[in-house]
């Protein structure tokens, strides 16, 4: 078997695994969310049932929609979100497409999947979907600044401190935890960056308090208002995949520790243990960063969210940038 064949098989297996895992996490997220609200919640496998049911349902295209954009958007969106997983190192396993993509590509793929969703909304020919798509675009423009600041700062920091590896590559951060490189000032800077990144997560994954584009009590699920059947199933997958992806990027950047070596494991067992531990970390981050937040707050209005990202969170990330620079310079 050539390397290419191996990569194709491994990639397909990983994507399938991640797909199932993202739905499982979504199910657990819903149960935990319900338990926090003193409800019983749905069965853990409810997202699977939902997606399977939707896959078998009729796909309705509204009369005023633009069919190719309307039908294409969910696929582009889901594919873009899925592809990111090929560039994320999992535990001590290198990413499948290690050499051909870095953090910038991941940012663009996240952006692409969000834009595809907005295109689908615009192509729906519905007022509500249109409003939802506009909100999605506005929200994107708001959270991209802090997100970019965080990524660029980290890359610059790794370059200046001479961390081994490419500055923009996720593997650099996985190989050597940034926490071990920084001094005291830098530590505060990193905490600021982490907080800013965590604040961006709800908007990236479209959950309360940033589910503005899909606000069901305001604009009837907004973006996905007109979607049904297979297309809606793809969007459901996209949402849970984006959650998984965003959390795994945060984990790779800030929590790269592994457990395999600590227990003296070797060979396949080491990879397996680290792989499992990676997903445990992602799961914990999702519970803390997404589920708890969405239980604790209500929904922002779009201008409030923009203000929040442009001033509060951008300020926080810039503070992190300054502190990290000071750490390097001093």
């Amino acid at each position, binding site marked *: 078997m050539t390397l290419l064949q191996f990569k194709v098989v491994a990639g397909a297996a990983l994507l399938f695994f991640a797909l199932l895992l993202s739905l499982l996490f979504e199910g657990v997220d819903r149960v935990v969310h319900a338990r926090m609200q003193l409800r019983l919640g749905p069965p853990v496998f409810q997202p699977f049932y939902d997606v399977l049911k939707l896959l078998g349902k009729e796909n309705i295209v509204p009369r005023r929609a633009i069919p190719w954009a309307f039908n294409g958007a969910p696929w582009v969106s889901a594919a873009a979100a899925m592809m990111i997983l090929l560039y994320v190192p999992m535990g001590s396993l290198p990413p499948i497409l290690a050499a051909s993509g870095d953090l910038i590509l991941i940012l663009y793929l996240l952006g692409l999947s969000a834009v595809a969703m907005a295109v689908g909304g615009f192509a729906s020919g519905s007022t509500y979907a*249109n409003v939802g798509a*506009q909100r999605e675009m506005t929200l994107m423009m708001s959270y991209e600044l802090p997100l970019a600041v965080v990524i660029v700062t980290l890359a610059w920091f790794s370059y200046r401190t001479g961390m081994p590896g490419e500055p923009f590559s996720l593997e650099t951060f996985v190989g050597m935890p940034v926490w071990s490189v920084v001094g005291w000032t830098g530590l505060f800077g990193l905490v600021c960056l982490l907080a800013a990144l965590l604040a961006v997560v709800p908007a990236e994954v479209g959950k309360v308090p940033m589910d503005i584009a899909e606000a069901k009590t305001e*604009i009837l699920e907004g973006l996905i208002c007109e979607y049904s059947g297979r297309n809606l199933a793809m969007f459901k997958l996209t949402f849970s995949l984006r959650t998984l992806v965003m959390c795994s990027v945060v984990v790779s950047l800030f929590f790269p520790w592994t457990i395999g070596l600590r227990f003296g494991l070797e060979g396949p067992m080491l990879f397996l243990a680290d792989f499992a531990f990676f997903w445990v970390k992602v799961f914990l981050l999702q519970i803390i960063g997404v589920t708890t937040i969405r239980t604790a707050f209500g929904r922002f209005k779009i201008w409030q969210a923009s203000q929040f990202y442009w001033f509060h969170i951008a300020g926080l990330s810039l503070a992190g940038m300054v502190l990290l620079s000071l750490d390097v310079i001093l």
Partner: protein
Amino acid sequence: MAQGTNKTYKVPIGPVHVGLKEPITAWLDVDGERIKDATIRPGAIHRGIEFMARERNPIQVIYLAERICGICSFSHIVAFTRAVEDATGIEVPARAQYIRAIVLELERIHSHILWAGVACYTFGYDSAFNLGMILREKVMDVLEALTGNRVNYGTGTIGGVRRDITPSVEKVIRDMIAFYKNEFGVFYDVVTDDPIAKARMRDVGVLTGEDAVTHCALGPTARGSGLRVDLRWSSPYEAYCDMDVKPVVPQDYTGEVRGDVFDRFLVRVLEVYQSLEIIENALNGLPTGDLMWEPKLTKLLSFLKQADGTGLSSIEAPRGDDTHAIRLTGGEDNVTWWKVRAPTYSNAVSWPIMFRNNELADSPLIINSIDPCISCMERMVVTDRSSGHEQVVTRSELVERCREKTRRLMGR
């Protein structure tokens, strides 16, 4: 939808919408996310209840009145029975008056908690919604213990009430009062201290005191705008005559009136505490005596058949003044005519003002902020489906038609 180009687009909220409990349409003229103007089109849930009453005797109409609204069912039957009592001169025993007041206040508690929960749900704060629903279960349990039902209690009758407050029920009610005094504060704090909840409700859907007067706002909507209006205070009825009920207005608690959704929220939540106090007072002063003016149903019916007169009553329902008017003709079994004016009928007029210069995201919250009961309010819409022609009846036309109808009815 480019903002600032002065070009507006129409966005319908409703008739069926996730954020609304009942069908109503608000056509919003939006510029970007900003609402320039709004048109309210009711008419989706008219049931012709007033007409149905004309084929029923007053006792049967009680059950019809109860089904005008699922939330304030007891308010409607108290208003109805009081109208009949007014028309016929029936005296209600003191104990029945007190029990009526207690059930009315229990209903107010359950309505206000439900509303507060739904308001939180409207801006995506599902946890507070669930907390509210859990808290509301307690008062529902008490209502069930007292009347046997959770929603339509079947407790009121003409000339009294049909269920007594036994010592065991009294204990249940006192337990509930203690429970809410301990637990309800949590809900209040959760919502008023939450920065997002405050950001969503403050300065949204403002109705100034002046506008509230000119647009006939009632109940908590008017009190939220700082007007001291409360029928329990200004024209007390039933057991409220023996109590000192002060209207709850935000300026007494926060020192300022903004007339926004937050003030309306505050008024409703504080009224829950007020209701608890009223129930406690009513239980302490519960007089002994009969429950009904005439316990024998057939005797009551024959009396009502002989009765001749017009009755009017207005009571403070959880949402505002609920007014019923009735006409009974001597020698006839059935009600001659019956008019209901539910509080939403007045409060809905203020919607367009509240909408102006708010955002699309606020629209369901603004609609919900007056605690609308659309099925209480629905009167008529003239449509001709086959030709797609919809006719709006102007005020003068409507007045003329009303007069015509009254003339027709009087001449009967």
